[in-house]
């Protein structure tokens, strides 16, 4: 691990300034992703600004009838909150399907949203990787691509956003709130928070340097049945090959977002409208223009089957 200095920020704007003014500075929340990457020198910050004392640790109702989740609410506490379990069960389900009990206790909402890809070449500093070292090439194209993206990827990078929580946030149309060093606040819809890689895969999100995530807000509850179906190589403690977050209404309409397939949680609103016509129709639309490799083409039928499983459960709940 490279040397760095460390400070514990006392207020949000000072934290944002500490990172914005110092090239090589980074926020640290739980540290479960950043320290992992620092140990292998994929990340080499020179200064860490610890955000744990900033107080964004509550879940509060909004005037619009939704909830504002503080950026520092841990994954465990968020999944266990009675309001989330009752009104936004897809979010509890997605969080509980991810990582382990130990990691969920440590990692808060902001860190989870900002976790980096799990592409094996991104982790291997002996291999070319445009995301880790811009311009060095992409070892995954033509290499081992089984866990990687099938849509929204580019000629520079075919990695996925690996997280589960954000897939549920996408189905719920959550909004990410931030503050910068000048005190300006922004509300960024989750749909546009994670970037498509294009020519600049080194940048994961639309955040500017030093822009601090303070909260995530959820609109009013959607009702309906909530599902998070995660398909992975072992039954627990593994990243998704494919996942589906869905909210299905008693009349068969609803919304679905897919994880493990793209640089961001993948949802196509025009495909949502096709839900009453069955899973295959939905995924044909949602994955129109997909560019899978030979090794990960299986993700397309897997997405259809995962969605079909969810819809079958929704139908049996409606009957019951």
């Amino acid at each position, binding site marked *: 691990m490279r040397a760095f200095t460390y400070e514990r920020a006392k207020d949000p704007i000072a934290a944002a300034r500490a990172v914005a003014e110092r090239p090589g500075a980074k926020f640290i929340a739980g540290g479960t992703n950043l320290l992992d990457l620092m140990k292998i020198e994929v990340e080499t910050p020179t200064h860490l600004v610890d955000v744990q004392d900033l107080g964004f640790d509550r879940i509060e109702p909004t005037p619009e009838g939704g909830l504002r989740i503080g950026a520092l609410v841990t994954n465990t506490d968020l999944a266990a909150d009675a309001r989330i379990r009752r009104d936004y069960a897809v979010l509890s*389900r997605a969080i*509980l399907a991810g990582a382990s009990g130990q990691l969920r206790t440590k990692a808060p909402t902001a860190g989870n949203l900002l976790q980096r890809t799990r592409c094996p070449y991104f982790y291997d500093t002996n291999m070319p990787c445009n995301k880790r070292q811009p311009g060095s090439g992409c070892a995954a194209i033509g290499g081992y691509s089984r866990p990687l993206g099938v849509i929204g990827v580019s000629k520079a990078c075919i990695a996925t956003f690996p997280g589960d929580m954000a897939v549920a946030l996408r189905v719920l149309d959550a909004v990410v709130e931030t503050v910068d060093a000048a005190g300006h606040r922004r509300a960024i819809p989750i749909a546009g928070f994670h970037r498509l890689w294009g020519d600049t895969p080194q940048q994961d999100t639309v955040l500017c340097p030093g822009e601090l995530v303070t909260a995530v807000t959820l609109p009013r509850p959607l009702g309906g049945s909530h599902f998070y179906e995660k398909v992975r190589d072992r039954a*627990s403690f593994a990243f998704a090959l494919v996942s589906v977050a869905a909210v299905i209404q008693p009349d068969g309409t609803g919304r679905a977002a897919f994880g493990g397939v793209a640089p961001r949680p993948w949802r196509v609103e025009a495909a949502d409208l096709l839900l009453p016509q069955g899973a295959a129709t939905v995924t044909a639309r949602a994955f129109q223009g997909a560019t899978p490799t030979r090794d990960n083409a299986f993700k397309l039928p897997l997405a259809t089957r995962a969605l079909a499983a969810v819809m079958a459960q929704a139908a049996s709940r409606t009957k019951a």
Partner: protein
Amino acid sequence: MSDLPKLEISRRGVLAGTAVTAVLTGNPALGAHPTPTQGEAAPPMPVRFTVNGQDQRLSLDPRTTLLDALREHLHLTGTKKGCDHGQCGACTVLANGRRINACLSLAVMHEGDEITTIEGLGTPEKLHPIQAAFVKYDGYQCGYCTPGQICSAVAVLDEIARGVPSHVQADLMAAPRPTNLELRERMSGNICRCGAYSNIAEALAEVVGPAAAGAKA
């Protein structure tokens, strides 16, 4: 336990020896060394927390993980370093009563915290009930993952008591119960390469009581 002759060779000595072979065979798994550091160190930073109820003040390179602080600086070597990347759970300790991977946390992030390690749960004379159950049911073979398994299990039972839900819970609104299925899911952050999982599940079943564990999820 205490009337056994004292062994001259410690587990630590054996591991330090075998780590060389592990390096030669290209296997980084037995990482019982501090995380390698490069470049000029930043000035040491003071940090104060309690470990097993005892006040500890240290002055550390900010790179020092909580795990290395416990093992290398406080010589509490009960907590183990397995993968050093949060994937195996051997380093699980309790911070303010909640379980975390000590390898993925900086010691300086724990100013003012209360840390509990395996050394703080029980003593050879008076085992913690979960330690006693692991002995009774052979919840291990080599024992390397055991301190992490036990610290994790202590937190799992607390999480169930506090109503923290899990992935395998059919009804998210219901109070969770410590069934076999639930315990296995909740313990999935602790890997055992000897495969003692079924014995660990039996040990935990005894601790939660046969009625609770026998119930189907």
